[in-house]
């Protein structure tokens, strides 16, 4: 017997994974947040159909994929939306990458320690609390400077993560 509490428990535990999936398919964070809401409502409505013997996340992600397609049809003329073919490819790529997500997250912690204090400061400015624009303005930086710095740091972090995984013996990196 699946109860409301079961749904709330599973959704609370796994909604971050669904949100990450949506961020991959929908670059606009506001649109992604909107779809995430639709997904949570939709999953609750379909809760009776859920087979508790099967894993929750793939079920939720499959549902989220169709929500993205529905949303895309409505927004076909909006900027910054990927084509259907790309969404399908991204969906497949996301599923391929899922097994190593946890390893990459762990590697990230080590890679962050290798950054210089200045690079940490850039990350705080971009991802920390407070408004990015007002932080940058107060300290006399243009937004272009912040974004350029982010591009460089994220690129370094990705390389570092990849190296870590390779050293740890993951075969498919």
């Amino acid at each position: 017997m699946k109860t409301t509490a079961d749904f709330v428990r599973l959704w609370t535990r796994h909604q971050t994974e669904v949100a990450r999936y949506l961020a991959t398919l929908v670059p606009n964070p506001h649109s992604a947040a909107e779809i995430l809401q639709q997904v949570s409502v939709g999953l609750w409505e379909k809760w009776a159909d859920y087979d508790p013997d099967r894993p929750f996340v793939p079920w939720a992600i499959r549902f989220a994929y169709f929500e993205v397609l529905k949303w895309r049809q409505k927004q076909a003329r909006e900027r910054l939306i990927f084509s259907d073919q790309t969404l399908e490819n991204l969906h497949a790529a996301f599923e391929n990458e899922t097994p190593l997500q946890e390893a990459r997250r762990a590697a990230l912690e080590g890679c962050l320690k290798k950054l210089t204090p200045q690079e940490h400061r850039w990350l705080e400015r971009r991802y920390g609390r407070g408004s990015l624009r007002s932080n940058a303005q107060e300290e006399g930086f243009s937004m272009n400077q912040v974004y350029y710095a982010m591009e460089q740091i994220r690129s370094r972090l990705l390389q570092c993560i990849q190296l870590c995984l390779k050293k740890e013996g993951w075969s498919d990196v």
Partner: protein
Amino acid sequence: MSDPRLNSLISRVIDQTATREETELLDELLNLNPEALTRYVQAVELHFNLESLGSAGSLESPQSPVLTPQNWKRWISTTSMAAGICVGLFAASLLQGYVQPRLQKNWVLFTENFESDPAPIASGVPQEPDHWSGDETRRTGSGPRVSPLNGHSMLQLVSADYQGKNAAAPSRTSSIWKLIDLRPYKSLCATGNFGVQLSAHFNAEPFEAPLQYMAYVSIHALDSETVRNGTLQDWKKLDSKALALNRGNRAVLDRDPRTWQRLNASLALPSPTDFLLLEIALKQTTPPDVPIQFGTQSIDGIRLILGRNSRLD
């Protein structure tokens, strides 16, 4: 190893600063190349993880010094050097071999309105991609009669030479150049169906006869070997080393400061093309006894687009 251009595109999409054209270009690249797809998925994942850490306050470093624009420049220069070492030789080839040219439109590879970047470096033909370089120029706002074509700034041609130029006589052509790395688009070049179109606008404060100027833009398609072996330093040999070149149409600069004259050059890309060398130039075409005069002529609104040859004209 990474391809800087692809990384930059991904980064701009993640940071929501990409234009519609850039997003569409990434969309195409994600379909052409499974490795680009993987890189994009991993980059979004990283961004998401950093957001989670940031909102939890876990990104703070106790020793973080406050950055100032001064030490930012130092940081950027170090980072750029590091990035330059691995200029995407590996990842440029990622896009090869997945030839499904689905591009239906023309893609803007860059537009230049001289609004924010510094003026081109006055050091002749560039040796590295993505930077304007050439004769002496300066970025200016409106002049007495000429206003920028777009925005608030334009580029003024100050002279037809640069300090340290090795030339027997003063030059009569004032040029700026830009080297473009096309290796990320190699799979498109390989089809033989794609080309580029360069356009630029010219204008000048009023000038009297006998002064006269001829404007032109040119494109050289080059392979990596030509760029690597120093031929760019001896640019007079470039025509014979280029895989293809086009100097486009030429126009005598009119004397009306209200009109910006647009010049184009298109070039079908031969399959071995790795780089493009772009030139935007203005030549003083008066008799040799007339002194060379630059300083009131301007360039603005430069654009390079990539597209199917059939759609470029």
